[in-house]
Structures are given as structure tokens and as C-alpha cells.
């Protein structure tokens, strides 16, 4: 099976969970004998891509001119007004970008193509997406493959173009939807691109039933087209099995994620204050960055718990593992979470989790401790109970190990491979 895959990021250069999921899935597929050409907007030298062919769209000289781009714009009506967007963009950041840049033209896109485009995430993202899709079409015309697989909205246009040029089947993979990022205030252009992708797709992979339901209800897509493929987690621990010695006696409760509306950091802070009113022998750590960071810092100080609540900023690499290994409990209070891989990562370090009911990952966790994200009292109660009850904590760790045995990228990859086979009529 030969796959032309379009992605937007790949470890170690990641801004969220998308790159990590792409790495895990492609590793699983590679082990099952799949050949993958993975196209990124830009290629650096350090990506972890020994198991597949990584291509940077910035290294591909597409022979396209203004006429092709104009033609593309005619077919894909959502591109009529082009504007700069990023995968994880807040409304405020979006407005400030709008003030800076004007609408781009087909000439701009072609011009940048000739200049060997950067493939960066900054600047004019929508122009980048269009150029990326042009490269997609070029690749589809020049390479041999059986199926096309596109991850999330930034690569959907490339997938659609590749399908048009090659006539090969298209799989669109939904990791996060505009409703997850922006709540009810969706960006219409992003929504339109997502929807165009779902409509053009021969099959859709959703990372959870939670996401599948949203695609059915909000995008009016035929349920028969959508298969749930849960994410998994890599069990590799570079730190080995040793627990990291904490420099303090208190138990540690961890939040790790973007500090944005979607992840519910404010509920974590409020719950921490309630917990500390009951028990001072607990500490809290918040790792990550985002637009709500200053507000969270000030609120924490206002609640007078700076001797028990620590901010880590954006953690990367080995520090991610260190903080998991130091923690006694992981909390993911997301307001909405299509999947949410972090509780599984915590399991790898034998750390039990409390997850919000509004998350996809809860679907695959054995004995998951679930709370509504807004129920701060309940969250505080569960934190106190799990940390205060050795038996319950041990039981949750055990359930975590069971979950990890079941949840493997090979299983997810097998599901995806089955979809490929159905679409290609059984090509090997």
C-alpha cells in the first residue's frame, strides 16, 4: 500500500497534539508494511522520520502558474477571500493579524511559489495553504500511490487537489474541529474548508465518537463515511522506569496543555484553591503557554497559593517526561477535547488522571474518572479523594496499565489500513 499523506507538523516541531499523533500513526502504518510519502509545508533536518519518506513542500518546485491558481480559486469557492489563519489562533491574535495584512492575491501566491516558499507557520497562513495545495496537485501528478490521506483542515485542500488530479481515493482525518478551537464562534472560512474536505473525502477518520458526532451534527456528513480511529500513545520512556524524586513531600497534581479557553485552565486553578483549603500538603503545576497565561498567573496569586502552585511555561523534550514522572495525578479539564492524548501519556508514567466528560479520550480509558469541566467542586473532591486514598490511586494506576495494553498505534494503524484496503479494492 502506497500512501500520499499531507500533514502540517511533525515532531519535534509541534505546536499541539497533531504532530505527535501523525508520528504515532505513521509508525504504526509503516510497521504494517505501508509506504508513506509524508508532505510537510517545510522540512527541517531534525524530524523523527526514519520510517517514512518525509518531503518538504518548500523543496518541491511545482510547475504552476497564475492560471492554475486562479482555476483552483474558482473551483474552491471558500478561497474567494483569503485571510491569514493559524491552526491554533485566538480571536485576539487573529484580529491583530488582520490589522497587519491585506487580502492576498493569486499573484502573491504564484510569486512566492517562484521564490521557493518558506513553509513556515507564520505570515500569511491561508496563502501558504493554497500554495501547499498546489504542491499537492503537482505531487499527485508526478508520483505513484494508491490512496491520499490528509490531516486536519490546513491540508484538506491539498488532499482535494491531489484527488482531482490523480483520481485516487481520499481519506480525511479529523483531529480537531473548528468547534473545538473556537467554541460557538467559529471562523466561517475554516469551517467551510473543513466541510469541503469532509464532502470530498471518500472516508473520514474521526479521533473519537465525540468528534464523529460533531461531524455528523455540525457538518451534515453521512455517518456511514465516518470511522472512529482512536489515537494511541507511544510507550517509549527515555527516562526508564525510575520515578523522579520530588524535592518536596507534597503530592503533585499536573495540568499540561495550551493555556487557552479550550483546555479549561481556569477550572484547574479554581479547583486547586478549593483543594488547598482542605489540605495544604498538595502542590499543583501548570505547564504550557497560551493567551490565558497572564490571567491564570494573576488569579493564582489572588487566591494566595503561590507557595503551592507552580507555573512551568511551555515544556518540551525531556522536561515533559520529567514533569509526568514527578506527578501523582494528572488533570485534563478541557471544555472540549476531540481526543486529548495527555492522559494516556500520563499513564505511561503510572500517573492516574481525571478527565473532563467533554473529551474523546474518556471513551477508551478503563475506569476513567470523569467530571464535567465546569464542576469545580467535583473536581476538587476527586483530587482530594484520589490523593488521599492509596487503594483508589493504585486501582487507577492498574486500570491505566490495562488501558495502555489495549491502546496501541498498531491497532489504530490497522483500522486505517483496513479503510485504505476497502477504498482501493484490496490493493496490498
Amino acid at each position, binding site marked *: 500500500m502506497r500512501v500520499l499523506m499531507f500533514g502540517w507538523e511533525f515532531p519535534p516541531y509541534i505546536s499541539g497534539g497533531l504532530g505527535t499523533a501523525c508520528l504515532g500513526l505513521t509508525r504504526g502504518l509503516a510497521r504494517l508494511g505501508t509506504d508513506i510519502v509524508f508532505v510537510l509545508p517545510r522540512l527541517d533536518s531534525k524530524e523523527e522520520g526514519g520510517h517514512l519518506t518525509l518531503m518538504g513542500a518548500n523543496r518541491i518546485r511545482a510547475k504552476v502558474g497564475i492560471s492554475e491558481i486562479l482555476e483552483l480559486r474558482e473551483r474552491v469557492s471558500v478561497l474567494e477571500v483569503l485571510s491569514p489563519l493559524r491552526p491554533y489562533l485566538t480571536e485576539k491574535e487573529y484580529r491583530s493579524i488582520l490589522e497587519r495584512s491585506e487580502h492576498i492575491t493569486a499573484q502573491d501566491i504564484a510569486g512566492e511559489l517562484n521564490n521557493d516558499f518558506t513553509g513556515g507557520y507564520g505570515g500569511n497562513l491561508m496563502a501558504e495553504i493554497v500554495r501547499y495545495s498546489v504542491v499537492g496537485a503537482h505531487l499527485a501528478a508526478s508520483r505513484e500511490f494508491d490512496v491520499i490521506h490528509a490531516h486536519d483542515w490546513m491540508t484538506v485542500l491539498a488532499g482535494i487537489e491531489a484527488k482531482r488530479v490523480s483520481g485516487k481515493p481520499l481519506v480525511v482525518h479529523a483531529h480537531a474541529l473548528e468547534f473545538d478551537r473556537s467554541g460557538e464562534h467559529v471562523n466561517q472560512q475554516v469551517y467551510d474548508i473543513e466541510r469541503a474536505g469532509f464532502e470530498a473525502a471518500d472516508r473520514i477518520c474521526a479521533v473519537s465518537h465525540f468528534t464523529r458526532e460533531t461531524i455528523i451534527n455540525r457538518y451534515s456528513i453521512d455517518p456511514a463515511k465516518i470511522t472512529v480511529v482512536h489515537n494511541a500513545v507511544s510507550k517509549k520512556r527515555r527516562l526508564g522506569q525510575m520515578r523522579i524524586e*520530588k*524535592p*518536596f*513531600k507534597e503530592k503533585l497534581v499536573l495540568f499540561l496543555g495550551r493555556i487557552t479557553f479550550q483546555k479549561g485552565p481556569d477550572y484547574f486553578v479554581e479547583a486547586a484553591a478549593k483543594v488547598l483549603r482542605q489540605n495544604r500538603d498538595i502542590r499543583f*503545576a501548570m505547564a504550557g503557554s497560551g493567551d490565558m*497565561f*497572564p490571567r491564570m*498567573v*494573576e*488569579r493564582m*496569586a*489572588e487566591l*494566595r497559593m*503561590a*507557595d503551592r502552585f*507552580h*507555573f*512551568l*511555561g511551555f515544556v518540551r523534550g525531556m*522536561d515533559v517526561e*520529567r*514533569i509526568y514522572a514527578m506527578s501523582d495525578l494528572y488533570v485534563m479539564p478541557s471544555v472540549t477535547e476531540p481526543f486529548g492524548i495527555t492522559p494516556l501519556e500520563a499513564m505511561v508514567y503510572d500517573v492516574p488522571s481525571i478527565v473532563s466528560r467533554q473529551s474523546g479520550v474518556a471513551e477508551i480509558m478503563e475506569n476513567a474518572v470523569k467530571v464535567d469541566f465546569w464542576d469545580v467542586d467535583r473536581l476538587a473532591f476527586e483530587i482530594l479523594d484520589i490523593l488521599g486514598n492509596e487503594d483508589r490511586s493504585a486501582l487507577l494506576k492498574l486500570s491505566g496499565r490495562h488501558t495502555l495494553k489495549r491502546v496501541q498505534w498498531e491497532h489504530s494503524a490497522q483500522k486505517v489500513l483496513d479503510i485504505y484496503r476497502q477504498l482501493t479494492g484490496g490493493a496490498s
Partner: protein
Amino acid sequence: MIPVCFYFQVHQPMRLDQGYSFFDIGRSHRYRDEAANRDIMRKVADKCYLPANRMMLDLINEHRGDFRISYAITGVVMEQFQEFCPEVLDSFRALADTGCVEFIGETHYHSLAFLFSREEFRRQVKMHGRILEEFFGARPTTFRNTELIYSNDLALEVEKMGYKTILCEGADHVLGWRSPNYLYQPAGCTRLKAMLKNYRLSDDVAFRFSDRNWSEWPVTTDKFARWVHALAGNGDVVNLFMDYETIGEHQWADTGIFEFFRCLPKAVLAHGDFVFRTPGEASAELDPMAQLDVPYFTSWADLERDVTAWLGNPMQDQAAELAYALEDDVLATGDDELIATWRELLTSDHFYYMCTKWFSDGDVHKYFNPYDTPHQAFITYMNALNDLALRVRRDLGKD
């Protein structure tokens, strides 16, 4: 005779290492950014302390005792002189030897201790007095609190400690229609005299000297001397209080600040009614004109002239509360190094960096702030303080 009193604040904080993270807590106790502290000290020594001290020494010699000035050198900056630039300390000693320079007492660590702990305040003031005596040969009799933070209670405490003169800000909301150009008696005090900063004339030099948008730019020595002379008949004293770093650091050499000061004594003395005195000397010669009642804290910082540069937002309040809450335990360890480290964390600058009021004083705050955001300042500070708290806890066997 109207004395003109120069008082220069000399201060550099021990800056914290912004790389000190949560993961360092319990593992490393190196909070200081040694490289930054050394580099900044060297830079400011070259741009300000050394050339300015040389100039002041020349002026004093030239005027044979008719040019007199005072310094408030914090304990924290003296420790850094010793460590990074001992020659600066020597040049201050040379100034002390002229007999024309007064050294002013304060809290050794340039702290907000008076607002949180009277005992710690007294300890730090005594510590600073001892150091001044050791280095410059005289116990201070004039006091100024950190950044001229002042109130009735503070004045009373300072009087009890034996000081004769105290310096404070001539803030409008304290003085109203009254003039800063007289001596005052702090409410509740019987011996202590207060000398108030003439903030218009002081800030004309300290802040506006190189401001080309200011209608009075450029400020020549003659023009400034004229403004000083205009006070003849309208006051007993002219108090020009400012950061010493004004000379050559806040106002760079190319603004002409050195030339300005070099010519100033002669220009001021050209008017027969004016002389230079140190604050202690002027205070001894003059009687208070009225009582000064300051029930709330004032300072020389920002437009508000209060303590909101250091305290008031939740990060500042929380950090300061937690720092002073450690007092008893830290002292109980009896560990000199630990106690000194704690006191370094009491330096007011750390709280200044956490300030979130970015209005008219935003520019000044930014200039002095090594952090990108007040939140980063708070987090770095709390990481260090939380580590210190753990060390103390361990030391006392409470872990």
C-alpha cells in the same frame, strides 16, 4: 544663605536568573544571574560610577569645600562593588576622605521591610549603619527609606533609632499649597527634621534632561541655575534628590550631562545667597517651618508617588507576603548564607518588576525591567522563594 542639597541614590539589585525554573527547585540554589549582575555593574561603573565619582572629586577639590553632596549607597550595591568592581568602592572612599560628602543610612537590602516587619526593618537599618561606618568612617545621622517611602510611623521609628534628619518626597498630595523648600517636623516627632525633595527641579535633571519634546530642552547649566536662583526669598533650602545613575547611565554622556554637572557648582555659587550643604549640615542649621502629617505611605516613584510600584497587584502582594512570612523560620536556621539569600529576595526591585500598571510610567518601568512581562518576574521570583522555603524547612527538620 540658601543651601542646595544634592542627594544621589546609588543602587543595583541582585538580579535573579530567569532560567531558574520549577525543575531547579530542590536541586539548585543558584538564584542569582551572576553574568547579568556582573555585566551591568561593569557597564554602569564605566558609564557612571567611575567617571561621575572622578568628576565629583575634582569639583570638590576645585571648590575647596564649597561643593558638598550626599549619597545613599545601598548595601546590595556595596556588596556588588566589592565582588565585581572594588575600584568603585575605593573612589567613594576617596570622596568620603574629602569631608565634603555625607553618607545616608537606609535598609541594607533596599527593602520594603518597614511595611511588613518592624524588627527586620530595624535589623537592616542597623546593618547598613555599621557598614557605612566601616567603609566611610562615620555613622549616618540622616536617613532615607527605600525609594523615599515615607509615613508618620516611619519617621517616628527612625527618630527612635537616633537619626536627626529624614528625606522624603515633596509630593503634591502631601504638601498641597506648601513648598518643599523648607524643613518640616514629622507629625509625632520632637527632634527629627524632614527634608523634602523638590521634585520639579530634581526631575528636570533626572527625567527630562534629554527629552527633546520638552519645551525647556535643552537645559543648560545657566538656565538651571536661574531656576534655582529664582527660589531666593521663597525658601530655606533646595533639595535635589535623584538616582546617581542619572549621570551617564539614564542620561548618557552624549546628552551633555557631565558638562552640565561640571559647570553647575560655579553657576549656582555665582549668586551670593546660595551655598552647597549636605542634608545633615543643612538640617542642623535650619529650623522646621511646620508640621508634616503623612498618615499614608508616599514615595518618589511614578506619578502616584505612593507604593503602588511595588505592591497592590495580586502577584506583588502574594510574593511579598510569602517572602516576609518566612522571616521567623529563616532567622531560626542561624545560617548566615541562607539569611543573606532571603534578604536579597526582599530587595524592592523584585516587586517593582511585577508591576502591571503600564500607564504614564510604563516607559520608566520598562527601562529598569529585565523581564519581558511582570508575570515572568513573578514566576522566577516564586521559584527561587519556594526553593528557599524548602531549604529552610529542611534545615529546621520540618520536612
